[in-house]
C-alpha cells in the first residue's frame, strides 16, 4: 500500500493521511494508491501539512507498517528514548521498528 506522511505546520509533529485528515497514529493511514501527489499538493496548498511524501507500507495484523525503518522510527519516535515515543508503556514497541 501507499501511505502519506508529513509534518504539522505549527507543532512539527509527524502525521499520517487518513483519507479524511491527518492523524498522529500510522495505523490510521489510508492507502492512497496513485493519488499521493495530488493529495499532497492539495493539503500542502491548504496549509494543513508540509514536507509531505509518499511511503510504501503494508497492512499487517498489528496495523499499518511502513516498509522502511526510517518511516517506522518516524511513526513511533526515537528508539533510544521509549519514554518519548507514541507508545511509552509498550515494551515491544521498539521491536516493531527493528
Amino acid at each position, binding site marked *: 500500500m501507499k501511505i502519506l506522511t508529513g509534518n504539522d505546520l505549527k507543532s512539527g509533529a*509527524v502525521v499520517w493521511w487518513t483519507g479524511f485528515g491527518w492523524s498522529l497514529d500510522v495505523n490510521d493511514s489510508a492507502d492512497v494508491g496513485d493519488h499521493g501527489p495530488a493529495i499532497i499538493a492539495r493539503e500542502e496548498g491548504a496549509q494543513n501539512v508540509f*514536507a509531505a511524501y509518499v511511503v510504501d507500507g503494508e497492512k499487517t495484523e498489528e496495523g499499518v507498517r511502513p516498509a522502511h*525503518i526510517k518511516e517506522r522510527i518516524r511513526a513511533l519516535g526515537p528508539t533510544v*528514548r521509549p519514554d518519548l515515543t507514541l507508545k511509552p508503556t509498550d515494551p515491544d514497541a521498539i521491536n516493531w521498528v527493528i
Partner: protein
Amino acid sequence: MYKYDEYDQQMVDTRVAEFRDQVRRRVAGDLTEDQFKPLRLQNGLYLQLHAYMLRVAVPYGTLNGTQMHLLGDIADKYDRGYGHFTTRQNIQYNWIKLEETPDILAELAKVEMHAIQTSGNCIRNISSDQFAGAAADEIVDPRPYAELLRQWSSFHPEFLVLPRKFKIAVIASEKDRAAMRLHDIGIKMVKNDAGEIGAQFYAGGGMGRTPMIAPLIREFVPLDQLITYSEACLRVYNRYGRRDNKYKARIKILVHELGRDEYVRQVEEEFAHLQTLAIEPPLAELERIKAHFVDPAFETGLSDDLDLTDPDFRLWVERNTTAHKQPGYIIATVSLKPVGGIPGDASADQIRLMAKLGTQYSFDELRVTHAQNIVFPHVKKADLYTVWKALDEAGLGTANLDTVGDIIACPGLDYCSLANARSIPVAQKISERFGSAQKQAEIGELKLKISGCINACGHHHAGHIGILGVDKKGLENYQLLFGGSEGADTSLAKIIGPGFTEDGVVDAIEKATEVYLANKQGEERFLDTYRRIGMDPFKEAIYG
C-alpha cells in the same frame, strides 16, 4: 568572556523581531514552506525526523553560568526536558514548536545568545579549543581571534550564500583539540622567530563523503592582516567553488581540484588586491575584544595537592582532568557519556547543575567540547572533590574521557532525517560492553566515533575506530574504519572490510581491542599499535 556591545545586541534583537514576523506570516499562510524554509534555516530551525529541531550557537564553545542555566530552562519550558550537545560545540533541541521559536530566540537574546548561522551555506559557528585560556600548553588564548572572526563572519553580506556551508576552527597549541585540520579553514595561532603572534592558515579540510586533511596554505599571517587574509580565502572559494553539485561544493573539492599551490596563488593575488582596499579592522578592535578574555582573578600561592583517597575520585581525576596554566587550578571535563547513555544528551536538571557549578567553582565559565562533553576550565584544586561529588550524584561523574566509552555519536536515524542508520544504540552497546573501569583502563586512550550517514557528523573518519552506518537493502549495516585521528597527528581512517550488523560491529571492536592488547608495546595507544602493525592482524582476527 566576550560581552555584547550595543551593536551586537541590536543585531540579535532585530533578527528575533524579523523572525517573529516571518513565523507569523508562515502560520497565516502568507509564506509557503519553500519561501519560509531558507528563513527558518538562517535561524537554526531545521525539520528533522520527528519535529522541528533548533540548533543554538555556542561561539567557540564558551558559555557563562547564566547562559547555561537558560539552556536548561529552555529544555524544560519548550522541549522535552533535555538538550543535545553537538560536535560543533553547539546545543540542539529536538522537539521545538514553530510558534514558540521566536520566544525561545528572544530569551536567548537576553543572555547574548542566538541561533544565527547555525545552518545554511554560510560561515557557521567558529569552533576552538575547549581548554582555551586555561591550557598550560597554549601560546596565547585563541578565543579573541575566534571572536574577531565571529564578528567578521556574522551577516557578512558576501558570504551568506556560499557554494556550501563553511566551518572555521582556531587553536593556539601544538596539541590540536579542535580537529583543526578537518575544517574548511583551520587557523593555528603561532609565534614567529621575532616572537610576534600571528596565524598559520590551513584550507580545504573536512569530513563528509570526501574526507580531506587541510594543507598548510600560509605559514604566518600577521594579526593586522587576519581578516583580510580570511576574506581572500573565502572570496576565491565563493567565486570558484562549485554550485552545480552540492557533493562537490565544499572548499576541500576546490583546493583538491585546483591543487594546493594554485589555490594559494589565487588567494595571494586576492589578498594583495584586498590590502589596497583597507578592509582590515583596526588593531584597536582586536585589543577591545582581547580585554574581554583576560584571565579571571586567580588566587596565587595555592597548593597543587589533591586528596585522592577516594578511589572513584582518583579515577576521575586521572581520566577527566587536565593541567591548568595557573598553579593550584585544574581543568575538569564532565563526561556526557555515562555507561549505556546517549552521547551528548543532558537533562534540564543536569544542565542547570553544571551551570551552577560553573558559576560557583569555575569563574562563571563553561565550555562545550566537540567531543560532546562539558568543561569547567578553571577549578581550584581545593574545590575539585566538592565539584566531582555534586556531579557524581547527578549522574555526571563518569570517568571515561578519551576512552572507548567516550564515544562521539551523531543523532543518527533516531532523530535525523538525513541518516541511514541509527548511531546511538551502537554507542550504547559499545559503552556497555566496555563499561568496566578496569577494562577501560586496560585499553587506555581509544577515540571511537560513530556517524549514521556519509555526512560524518559523528566524525567517523577521525576515529581511532570509526563506525559508519549505512542502509543495505533497507537494513542497518555498519562499516568499521581504523586509524583516524583529529589531533596534531591528523589522519583519516580506512574501511577494514565488509560491514556488520549492530551486534556484529560491537563484537568486531572487542576483537580489535584484543589484537591491540596482544600487540601493544610500552605505552602505545590503540592508534599507535595500529599504525605500527597495520590493518592485517586486525582483519584476520575480525574476519577470520
